[in-house]
Structure formats: C-alpha cells, structure tokens
C-alpha cells in the first residue's frame, strides 16, 4: 500500500516581478486586471511533472539543490498548497515538521501553547492532555513549561515545537530540514524517535541537505532538480548521482574557455590545508594541467570498480627552472573527510627539479574503497609545503561495487566460522 502518491504534479508560482505590476488595488483596478491577476496560472514552475509513490512504512528522502522544488513538494504533500495540475494522495494523518513552533504565541505559557499547537496539528484536547507529560519531558522543558514562550531561548522554542509535532503520532511525518534545532543529544533523541516511528510502520518523508542522514535513515531517495525527478531509488546510488552532478556543474562553472584549466582562484591561501574547502591556489611558478583518472586498462575513466587499479595522471609545467618540487595527491570522501594523502617527499624522495613540461602518474594497484563518490586533490609545491599550484577536491571519482558494505576503506578480508556456527555462502 502506498502512503503517498504523487501523480504528475505541476506547481507554478507567479513571478514576483510580474506580480509587482499589479501590486496595489489601484493599479489592478486601473488596468482592469483584478480578475486576471487573481489567476495563478503563469509564472515560475517550481514542479514540472513530478510523480512518485512512497510505500507505507518506508522512510523516504528527498534531496536536491536549493530551489529544486523540494520544499514545495513537501508543502503539497502536507496539504498546505494545492498542485496546479496533477494529484497528491496521502493516506492517514499527516504531521509536517516544516517550521517548528509556527503559531506559538509569545505572551502565553508553554503549556497553553502546547495545547493550541497540538490542536492546530489536528489533535483533540483530550489527546493532548494524555500526551502532555511526554511532550514536555521530550522537550526537556518541565521546569519552564508555565513560563511565557517569549522567555524561551530559540533552542527551547524549537524543541517544544518539535516535541508537539512528533507527538501527534502521525501516519505520515513530513520533515523539512529541522533536525538542526537542538544540541547533539536532542538530535539523537529526534533520530531515535524517527526510528521508533519507523518500527511502528509509520511513513517518514525527509527533506534535507544532510546526505549522510539520507543514506543512514532512508529506504529510498528521490533527487529533484529544477522541478523534475532526476533519480529515484536506493539512497546511496541517488546520492552519488547527485554528487557527481553537483561537482560536474561546479566544474562547468570553473572551466575557462581555453580548456581544462580550473580558475577558482583563492588569493588567500588557507592556513591549514585540511581546513580548506575546494578551490585552487598557489604561486603558479609551476602549474598542474589535464588531470585524468585511468582505469585498469589505461583508459580515462570517472568510474572505477572497487578493488580495481586506479591511476591519476596529470601534467605539470614550470615557467622557470625550479629545484624544490614535490607533487602530491589526496583522496577525500564526498563530505570532505580525508581518506588518504601523500606526496613524493612523504614517500621518501628528495626535492625534484622541473624546467618546462612534465607528467606525473600516480598508480594504485588496488583501490580498496567502498562504493561512493570521492574527491581528489592534486598539488605541486615546495618541500616546506608552500604551493606552486594546489587543486583542492576539484576532481570527482566515483567508486562502484555491488556490495553494501559501509565506511570508507574496504580491507581485503575473509570470514571463517568454526564450531556450531554455520553460515553458508561465505566467500
């Protein structure tokens, strides 16, 4: 059974620039456009033919860059807006964590706000009374519940809002980027609560930028891009496709007309290399060009099988003779964790010399990484670390494997069982 069915949904908003022409009654009357203006059939299309189903009891994630239509989709499912065309069908009681504590009145006590907020979310007075203690203890606000809400800190406010919304005990819970409300321990509690809902067969729809959360919690993910569905299915595959696309788009923006040279310059060199986000910097006495990944057969590739060979090849060129040259590479996960980094100096070589053009080939006979998207650093610098040309996480490598193991590193391994334990099918 499907908890949510979205069928060919379009949603258009009037563009603000257009709206402004008739922003006042006077101009609307003068131009006779009152009725025309009340129709919302022109303008910006936030969703363009989105269809998907969410099976009951599943945790479903929606990802996409800003403005891709995620939140619009969520609001349509929550019933806050209506699709311009198409249908949204939701089975059961819906609770939406879109804005926490929306509708709290600052002047009255937390207690009264809990009741009013709960009723807004569709609970009866009696239901709220029955859950009241749980709500308060979950929000960790027992000592403050009779104080006016205006005296609450923003964290307390959000916690109370979250607590009310999650105690509605919905059949379908919609969550829009609200887990960042509390400290660590509260976030854990929220996640536990989601897991609990899941165990009880409730459907959760999660919209977030935290890809980590999606891959950890969701049974299925959907990638929205510009109001259309780009991919749907296994969260990790969807996330990887998304990340590849994000990086490709960024790279597109970075490429200059001449070709492969990346020009996202940073005038300020970061103090700590490992704090740095992606970009390119350095003195440019030497430059790196034409960075490529080669697969086992030596052909350029962006996709490498886990456990297969990988080579990273790039050209270096100096404009004057240099006699203090070190080249290095680094491998990062998509969220920026360094998996491995090395350079010629670390590997025991002396400072090199470079006058003119050269080529570097960094070979890994076995790439023992789990499936995922990785970002690669390449650099040429002095022995003391002062960079000639540093490319930070500018290159994307996708590692594929059929297996579902987790983490980053996949050591070669075997299982052996002895005694009364028998597990068949182990390799």
């Amino acid at each position, binding site marked *: 059974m499907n908890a949510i069915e979205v069928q060919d949904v379009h949603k258009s908003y009037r563009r603000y620039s257009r709206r402004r022409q008739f922003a006042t009654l006077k101009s609307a009357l003068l131009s006779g456009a009152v009725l025309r203006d009340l129709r*919302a059939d022109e303008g910006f299309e936030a969703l363009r033919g989105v269809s998907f189903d969410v099976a009951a009891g599943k945790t479903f994630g929606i990802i996409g860059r800003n403005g891709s239509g995620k939140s619009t989709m969520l609001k349509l499912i929550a019933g806050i807006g209506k699709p311009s065309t198409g249908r949204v069908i939701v089975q059961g009681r819906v609770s939406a964590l879109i804005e926490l504590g929306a509708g709290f009145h600052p002047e*009255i006590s937390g207690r009264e706000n809990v009741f009013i907020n709960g009723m807004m979310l569709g609970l009866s007075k009696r239901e709220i009374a029955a859950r009241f203690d749980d709500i308060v203890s979950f929000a960790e606000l027992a000592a403050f519940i009779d104080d*006016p809400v205006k005296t609450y800190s923003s964290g307390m406010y959000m916690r109370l809002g979250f607590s009310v919304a999650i105690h509605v005990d919905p059949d379908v819970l919609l969550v829009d980027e609200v887990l960042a409300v509390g400290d660590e321990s509260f976030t854990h509690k929220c996640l536990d609560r989601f897991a609990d809902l899941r165990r009880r067969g409730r459907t959760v729809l999660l919209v977030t930028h935290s890809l980590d959360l999606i891959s950890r919690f969701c049974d299925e993910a959907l990638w929205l891009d510009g109001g259309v569905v780009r991919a749907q299915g296994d969260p990790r595959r969807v996330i990887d496709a998304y990340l590849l696309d994000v990086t490709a788009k960024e790279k597109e923006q970075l490429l200059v007309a001449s070709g492969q040279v990346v020009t996202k310059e940073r005038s300020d060199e970061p103090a700590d290399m490992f704090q740095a986000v992606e970009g390119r910097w350095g003195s440019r006495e030497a430059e790196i060009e034409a960075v490529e990944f080669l697969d086992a057969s030596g052909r350029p590739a962006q996709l490498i099988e886990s456990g297969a060979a990988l080579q990273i090849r790039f050209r270096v060129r100096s404009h004057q003779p240099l006699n203090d040259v070190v080249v290095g590479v680094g491998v990062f996960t998509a969220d920026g964790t360094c998996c491995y980094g090395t350079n010629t100096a670390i590997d025991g070589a002396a400072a090199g010399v470079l006058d003119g053009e050269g080529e570097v080939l960094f070979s890994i006979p076995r790439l023992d990484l789990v499936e995922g998207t990785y970002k690669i650093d390449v650099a040429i610098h002095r022995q003391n670390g002062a960079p000639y040309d540093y490319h930070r996480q500018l290159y994307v490598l996708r590692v594929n494997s059929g297996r579902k193991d987790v983490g980053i590193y996949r050591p070669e391994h075997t299982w052996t069982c002895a005694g009364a334990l028998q597990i068949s099918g182990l390799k």
Partner: protein
Amino acid sequence: MLANLQNLFRYRALIQSLVARELKARYRGSLLGYFWSFINPLLLLLIYTFVFTVVMPGARGNGLEPFAVFMFCGILPWTWFSSSLLESSNVLVAGGNLIKKVLFPAEVLPIVTVLAGLVNFCLGLPILAGFLLYYRVPVTASDLLWLPVLIAMQCLLTLGLAFVVASLTVLFRDVRDLLANLLTLWFFATPIIYPLWSAPAGVQRVLALNPMTYMIVSYQEVLFREGPYRDWQRMFGLGAISLLVFLAGYFVFNRLRDTFAEEV
C-alpha cells in the same frame, strides 16, 4: 464550501482556545488585565457624555435622554463591528507563518478575531446595563430576548465581511488603509451618535442602504426605546441580509483560499 464549514466545526475547540488566548494575550503585562474590557467602554462613554453635555450640548437629539446612554447603545456594537474588521484585515498577513507552514484552515483566524470582539462586547454589556439602571431607562423586559438574536445576526454579518476583508488584504495590502477610512465614513453613515429620524429625508434614504443602520437602530430600540419591539419585518430582513453576507463572504474566502499560502 459546505464541507469546509463542516470541517470548521471540527476545529471548534481550537477556535475556543484561540479566542481565550487572544483575550489573555491582549492584556498580558497590563496591571488591570481583564478590567480593561470594562474600563474601555466606560471611558468611551464618559468621553461622549462630556462632549455632548459640556462641549456641544445643543447637538443632542430631542427627547433622547440621557443622550450618552442612547449613543452607548450604538457605540458598543459598532466598536465590536469596526475593530473586528480592522483586525481581520491584518490577521492573515500577521498569521502568515501558520498559513504557510501548518495545515490549518485559514478562516479560523478571522473567526477568532470576531469572536474575541464578541467577548469584549459582552463584557461591555454590564456597563451599559449599569447605566440603563442608573438612569432608570424603561427597558421592556421581553425586548431583551431579542438581544441574543441581534448579537447572532451581527456575528454573521461581521464574519462575512471579515472573510472578505481578510482575504482581500492578502492580495492587496491597500485594503487595510482603505478600510480604516471607510470605517470612519461608515460610522457617521450609521445612526449612532444621532437618531435616524433627525437626518434629512434624502440622507435617510441613503442610510437605508446600509445594513448597519438596521442593526444599530434595532439595538437602540431593544435597549433604549420604550415599548415592546415589534418590527418583525426589519428583524427578518436583517437576519436574511446577515446570512447572505456571511455566505457571500465565505464564498469569496474559499475562492481566494488557495492563493494565501503563496501571497501572504
């Protein structure tokens, strides 16, 4: 539309709580609290008494003594009417967060405004009663049975207009400013601080187009005039108009409902 009205019934507990919250929050932080609901009409009455007995004693209608109490019979329902409309014009915009972020029937907001005004109106009634007794105004006891009927009709009429005002303000913020001035004009175009019969015949015909004229005159007759109220026709007509305005207002509100989440 009917389904929406039915749905609204499910939210009655919420409406009730919101009205209570509205009243509670309004006076939170003030020393006198709820007493302001009594004191406000009292002060208003004193001001009008002062104006019409000291400043311009000639302006009062003949045979309507005490004139201040006569006016008060009209001012009290008018205050409910006008403040409800003024607040309704802002209520959807101010509650934008709710409309955009919570699945929640938007009509609850203007309804709460009108009902909170009703509670304030009812709190003003004892003041009025006190003055009626003090001045020994001969009120016909059976007339008082009409009072709840009148209040119910005014409630419908105000709700209907509040729906229109609230939903139009979302689309055109001009309505707020327009309304403030319109209400001032409307106040003087309703026989509140003058008796209807004192207006020139031509003006009376214009006033006859104003539903609030019938409403206020009915209040005055029920509360102030001697003799039992007998104008069944007016009462029936008023009820019909109020119901019509309510339904029309709710219809407009429903038509515009889908634009709220986007335009607020």
